[in-house]
């Protein structure tokens, strides 16, 4: 065999991945490239001639819009994060759970609008829409768990993921068959049209409703997880489902509860999304679903505050990113590329910090 050089010993100690400096070189080059592209783009945008520049009011609108969208993403992201925390699986069909809630709300709001109830009792009609959407999304989520995921509880991890992709496609096209392929206009009560001025800030009324509802929902969820027995058992199952079941926790029931809570939150998000964009269709769940998943990963999947933070970040990035970075490079219609921003963030987070912003550095499963 001959003598063993020092380098060989070190190589054996470090393992193969560590010995390859060029992989790190690629990553470093990549990050330098990204940082410089972003900085130069932002600089160029901000130093545009005054007539081509965005006004301060425009930037404020971008930020408010980003916050509103981001808080909706945060609600959907909670569904991903809760399920991932407990089952270590990506519920790819969660966007469709959200979509079904939006359809349920649409049919009620349509009927209310026809009877005039939507405008005469806007508060109670919004409350009814919320409840209907929450119950529908919850039902879809629970059914999904029962039919598609439960039989695969002990299967290898990619099997449930592929199933979830199939379920997503199936649910999307079910909605298409049930409700038709065309988009439907979602009516908003007249009380929510127009703007409110709060602390000198002029905000769309729907945006105010979105912020308030999301804050209530996230606070409620955090309290539920932290204070109730069910919340405690959810945390226990997330930590170690086998031990939890030995401690007398009904694991299957906790999993169903988790899906149900994720569905409830998706239902809330569906109503908020519908009053913001005022349109529902069968494929509306896919892009927000991916954006929300990205938010969950960005914040650190499994962490509730991480999902909220990630959602807001993604929302801001989608509304600010194209304007701030791409305008400087003279890219035509920069907002066409806003989804590319979401995915780019997703890819970069997973490459550089798979544990997410609030996660534990390196995710163990990665």
């Amino acid at each position, binding site marked *: 065999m001959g003598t063993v050089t020092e380098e060989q010993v070190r190589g054996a100690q470090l393992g193969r991945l560590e010995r*390859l400096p060029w992989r790190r070189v690629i990553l470093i080059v990549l990050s330098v490239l990204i940082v410089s592209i972003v900085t130069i783009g932002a600089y160029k945008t901000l130093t545009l001639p005054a007539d081509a520049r965005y006004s301060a009011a425009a930037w404020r609108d971008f930020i408010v819009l980003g916050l509103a969208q981001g808080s909706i993403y945060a609600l959907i992201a909670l569904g991903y994060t809760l399920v991932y925390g407990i089952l270590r699986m990506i519920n790819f069909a969660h966007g469709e759970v959200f979509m079904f809630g939006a359809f349920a709300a649409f049919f009620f709001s349509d009927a209310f609008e026809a009877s005039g109830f939507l405008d005469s009792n806007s508060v109670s009609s919004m409350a009814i829409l919320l409840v209907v959407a929450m119950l529908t999304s919850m039902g879809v989520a629970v059914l999904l768990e029962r039919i598609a995921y439960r039989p695969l509880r002990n299967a290898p991890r990619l099997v449930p993921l592929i199933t979830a992709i199939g379920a997503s496609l199936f649910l999307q096209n079910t909605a298409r*068959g*049930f*409700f038709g392929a065309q988009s439907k206009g979602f009516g908003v009560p007249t009380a929510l049209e127009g703007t409110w001025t709060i602390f000198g800030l002029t905000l769309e009324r729907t945006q105010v409703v979105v912020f308030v509802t999301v804050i209530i929902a996230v606070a409620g969820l955090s309290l539920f997880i932290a204070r109730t027995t069910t919340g405690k058992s959810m945390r226990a199952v997330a930590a170690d489902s086998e031990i939890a079941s030995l401690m007398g926790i009904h694991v299957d029931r906790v999993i169903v509860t988790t899906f149900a809570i994720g569905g409830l939150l998706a239902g809330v998000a569906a109503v908020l999304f519908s009053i913001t964009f005022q349109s529902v269709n069968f494929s509306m769940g896919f892009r927000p679903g991916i954006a929300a998943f990205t938010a969950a990963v960005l914040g650190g999947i499994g962490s509730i505050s991480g999902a909220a933070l990630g959602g807001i970040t993604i929302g801001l990035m989608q509304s600010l990113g194209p304007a701030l970075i791409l305008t400087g490079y003279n890219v035509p219609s920069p907002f066409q590329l806003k989804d590319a921003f979401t995915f780019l963030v997703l890819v970069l987070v997973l490459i550089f910090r798979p544990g997410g912003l609030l996660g534990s550095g390196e995710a163990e499963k990665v």
Partner: protein
Amino acid sequence: MIGGVARRSIVRGGLIGGVAAIYVALVGLYTKFADLELVGEQVTLGRVLIVAPALVAAYAVTRPRIVAGERRPVAFGPGVAAGAQTGAVTGAAFAAAVWFAYWFGIDRIREIFVSVTEPLIEFLTFGQGVPAGLPLLVGASVVGGAVGGFARTAPARVRDPVSIGVVAVLLLGLLQRIVPIVFVELGFEARWLYRSGSGLTLLGAALIFVVAAGASVAWDRGGERARDRVRKTVETAPAARLGLLVGILATLFVLPLLFGSVISEVLSQVMVYVLLGIGLNIVVGYAGLLDLGYVAFFAFGAYSTAVLTGAFLNTTTGAAEPALSADLNFYVAVWLVALLAAGVGLLIGAPVLRLRGDYLAIVTLGLGEIVSVITASRWAQPLIGGPQGMRGVTKAQIGGFNPQDHPQQFYYLALAFVLLALFVSWRLASSRIGRAWNAMREDEQVADAMGISIIKFKLLAFAMGGAIGSLGGALFAVNLGSLTPASFEILVSITALAVVILGGLGSLPGVVVGALVLIGLPGLLREFEEYRLLIYGGALVAIMVLRPQGLIPNVRRSRELEQEEVTQDAWAKEVTGEAEAIAAVVPGGTLGVEPEDLE
């Protein structure tokens, strides 16, 4: 209890069947297929679908039960009775729903469920109207249930020929667009077999049934010995294998001559997806890296072929030269495209080397989506046409051979590509590289410790998969002659994945069969087009839950699996001698797949 089937199980199964029937009605399948005649005027696909939920429910309800490690099949008579009762429950639930819809008001329901219409109700009540037709609906379900019970519990010597005969009749009925054409091309009269522009004649159906059932009986009677001899000859004698190969190739070669241009076009689409499937199979099936962004390679192949061969950009005023154009011959460009795609594979692979499992899947999904978003954006307009796309992609002409204008000639071009990719993939799988991928898929750490360079082989898998996928894109570009970003969405990745998974991960014949089923059947039956994605989604879920190894599993892997079952569960075999019982008692054994297989 009815012959070992609990009443509760009958009611439950029947109700699930009823819900399934209501689902089929609401999603619009009945209205769509009401008039697709399979045999005569009476047997339409819609009517088969009326019977199907009860049949499937009864088939599931009368399954053998496992009691204390012992498999207890349901007896024939009670099985049919239990099946019929299940069908009755299904039919009653369905009829109740139809009656409710009628009572509540069709128009009011249609405001939500767009498929609920007067014709639907008329179809479901066999044209008799609501109170009068409902017993017929229940009756149909009872018959369906009894057939389901029969299919599960009848003795094999009766059941097999009958079910093979029925399946053959239905299949040939469904293939009513192809088979008559083949007959005409071969110079035979098809009128006695198919009614013009419609399904089988009664005589034809009876004849097919008799032939198929007879063949099944003969195959059965022929005995083990004859079958063994055939198998052994094929396996051992090189001449026989060569003959088989030549036979298959010759068949593939004459197919378009038999089928004419319409079917050649469908076959060409199938070939494009076979290529995508072969490429994705290397990444997912061999190396175990779930890639959800495979559309990136497809798009890269198509667009770079277009750019390299000098296609035009679509503009509002007509056509314009792209910012960059090489004006190469297609047969030169395609190799360059494959090479470049392999490079792209390396570029995508390098940063995600450290990721595994579902994280890798999501990152690749993100990369794929970035590609489709950019393809469709105005930013990409000067180079590849952006939202308006490109046209005038090369005709790939050599003398009189012009694949773009003649589907039959395109078939040969596609066939050449597919055979090349199949050969490369097959040789790779049984080479050192293929075994390294296998080892890596089973356990990365162990493979690493065994001296397999994980990095090298992961990158190689991405590069090979990318190159073959880009060939699919190049073919696609040549076939259509024009490109729009709508063809390069995530659905391509998911369809390719469905093709690979339906056929069986890591199995090349599986890829071909998967593409034939998922792309070929919907292509032949235009009516299916609207429900293609619904069926893909359902198929992905059903396969993962019921048969994760796919239709044609990878041989090596299923052998490993059998080995393990034999050693692990010898005791169960001693008790019953039934393979099914083993599968049922072993936790996870029903999945029939190694837990590590997909990790």
